[in-house]
């Protein structure tokens, strides 16, 4: 684990607990930032580095699950590890469905906790990589001309050049040129790669 590049955020209103967690994480060389409340977390000037959030289910004024929703709504994507005093199955299910990395019951085994942290940080790192990829793809997509975007949509939909030409009311040669431009601008070698990018960008896939 690249400790320097990662930070674990801990939100717990019990100072003893958050200090203990900080102590444990620091003993394995992980950078930790602790917060008393979700508000403090939101207000803080956080470094944009891979990491995860350790969140107590019971928080003053707001439940950990509600805060999870709030973060999603605010497009703050950070893997969350929930810790709770008592294992509540429905709550666990709800949290996992909403994308929690893990749900640990206090007191937890240190190794379980550290594993969960590692998993979460990796997921964040993956996510960040994907996020970077998508951003690049979007930049490339934005460089396409409107005609090229039309052609790309049809290509991704699995249309042949002939079909594309017919659909766009142009010659097959012209369609072929456009297609070449798309592949070049999007920097893909194969049709499956283009389809994957289109999916990531959330483009509407037209199927016959």
């Amino acid at each position, binding site marked *: 684990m690249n400790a320097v590049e990662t930070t674990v955020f801990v939100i717990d*209103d*019990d100072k*003893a*607990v958050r*200090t*203990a*967690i900080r*102590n*444990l994480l*620091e*003993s*394995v060389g992980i950078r930790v930032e602790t917060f008393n409340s979700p508000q403090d977390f939101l207000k803080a000037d956080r470094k944009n580095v891979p990491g995860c959030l350790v969140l107590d289910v*019971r*928080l*003053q*004024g*707001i*439940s950990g699950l*509600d805060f999870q929703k709030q973060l999603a709504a605010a497009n703050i994507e950070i893997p969350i590890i929930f810790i709770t*005093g*008592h294992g509540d199955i429905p709550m666990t299910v709800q949290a996992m469905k909403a994308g929690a990395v893990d749900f640990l019951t*206090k*007191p*937890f*085994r*240190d190794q379980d906790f550290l594993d969960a942290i590692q998993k979460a940080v990796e997921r964040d790192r993956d996510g960040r990589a994907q996020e970077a990829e998508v951003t690049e793809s979007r930049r490339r997509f934005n460089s396409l001309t409107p005609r090229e975007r039309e052609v790309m949509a049809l290509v991704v939909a699995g249309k042949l050049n002939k079909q594309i030409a017919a659909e766009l009311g142009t010659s097959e040669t012209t369609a072929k040129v456009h297609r070449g431009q798309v592949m070049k601008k999007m920097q893909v070698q194969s049709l499956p790669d283009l389809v994957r990018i289109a999916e990531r960008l959330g483009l509407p896939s037209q199927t016959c």
Partner: protein
Amino acid sequence: MEFFRTISSPNDFMPHGYCYLWDPGLVWLHVISDFLIAVAYFSIPITLMYFIRKRKDVPFNWIFIFFGMFILACGATHVMEIWNLWHADYWLSGGIKVITALASVATAILLVRLIPHALALPSPEAMRLEIAERKRAQEGLGKAKDELEIRVQERTAKLQKANDDLSDEILQRNFAEEALRRSEERFRLLVERVQDYAIFMLDTSGRVTTWNQGAEHINGYTAKEIIGLHFSQFYQAADIQLGKPETELQIAAAEGRFEEYGWRLRKDGSKLWANVIITALRNQRGELIGFSKITRDLTEQMRTEAALRGSEEQLRMAQEASGSGAWDWDPQSDLATWSDRHSQIFGLEPHDVKHTWSSFVHLVDPEDRARVQLAILTALKPHGALEVEYRINRPDGQARWVMSKGRTYCDSAGEPMRMVGLTMDITERKQLEHDLLRTQSDLARVSRLLTLGELTSSIAHEVNQPLVAVVTNGDACMRWLTAEPPNLDKVRESLVWIVKEGKRAGEIIKRIRELAKNKAPQKTELLVNDVITEVINLAGSELSNNQVTLRTDFASDLPIVCGDRVQLQQVILNLIANAIDAMKSIHQHPRELSISSRATDDGQILITVRDCGMGVEPNILENVFKAFFTTKKEGMGLGLSISRTIVEAHGGRMWALSNNDQGATFQFTLPMVAGAHA
């Protein structure tokens, strides 16, 4: 002479001598005769004048004046006769004769008239006889007189002596009379000026004859208005019909005196309660001459006495009803008087009525002696009031609880003269109180356990938190130890935390055990904010669990209160648990609970717990404090009832309010310890 002749003799007539032919014999005859007549005539009036002046007793003496006058006039005519011998003044002579004639005629007429009267006068003979007789009588008298003279002289001497004695006595008597007069005057003034008694006299028929100022003051009539009127004026119509005024006079006349207390009327018609004494007045011969009546206005006194009797009666009834005994202690002589009932309460014979401080203290349970004595001594001051509950050990070995109440009465110098009061047996009440207290305590514990049960998960969390800290720090500690090189600073730091959190867990468990334990309430000096904080620490996770945001606003510098920590925690715990329940169904707005404390102006501490839950209908605000009243499905309806009991046992009050926006507010007060400040 010539002149005279001219006037008196105008030469018309001849002087009278011519008639006599100037015969000297004849002329002288006439002259001498007339002269003698005239002298005689002139001498007679003088003699008569002399006579009547000397004998003024002569009757009709005025007639002598007339005689005198006419004789004088006759004399004058004779003088004129002589004059006319040489002088022919016949007119003058005639005029004098006219005067003489008038005087003579008048005298003659008067004399005629006088004669019958004159005849009535005793004749000198008769006079003489009578005089002779008188003379004889006088002679007899003379003799008797002589005898008398002697006796008179003797008597005079005696009388003189008596007179002298009398004079002395009169002198003395005058002195006595003067003294009596003065004394009577003083007495009269005294009677008249007496204001508080109506003192007046009646005649035998009952009519008012005198009237003093007191009577005017009491009855309202002035002397002028009432004197002469019948004294039945002062009686009520009903009494008059019964013939009371007359009866009273009869009794007074028969027995000498009549006295009664009764209603009388004033002039203005108002009634007065009077003491009336009627005394018969008799003269030396024992004849009834009237009555004296003395009336005293006792209206005010009667009212006061009636009021006093009323309150004494009330006191007696109150004593009987309460079964209390009365005592009266004179701190100066250290002697106390106990009523029979008081002695009975202390297990003594009723005749044991005399007590002292030490004999009383001896009966007080040794444990309470100091307290009782202090209470009495503290109350021993002007307007001092005593109220003390204590145990006594009766001579028969019975221990009883009693309560004594009393008041101190001081003289003007503030020196306590008396302490008076009541004592009642409160053993049964004490027993009931004790039972009640135990029942309340049991109930409170049950309620506490129920509340704790509701908070199980919260309590588990509270215990779990320090355990998490312990375990996690322990794990970290191992890693710091196994590191290369081991980070001993971090190891130490971790261990400090482990110890601290271990203790914290222990504290929490101890507190929960206290809440669950069946322990007699014990009052200690507390800081309200600490008590609240401890409860919040226990129930805090329940708040988080239910997404309740807690806001606290504790006034710093609050005074100390005296109370049972566990019970007060129970009250706050209960209010928090209720608030959480009330907010469970709230989703449309954040759940907020605020707890605040502050000192009020009237020396209390006010604790407010406010939620934003479903609230309490204003019409059931009071019902929520009733036992077994609940709006919750699982509730027993005891929490608030017990909470209020606890607060009231601490001398405070508890109430509920409905918030304007949403939710309910529960408040309670606690009295602060006098003069104590945190």
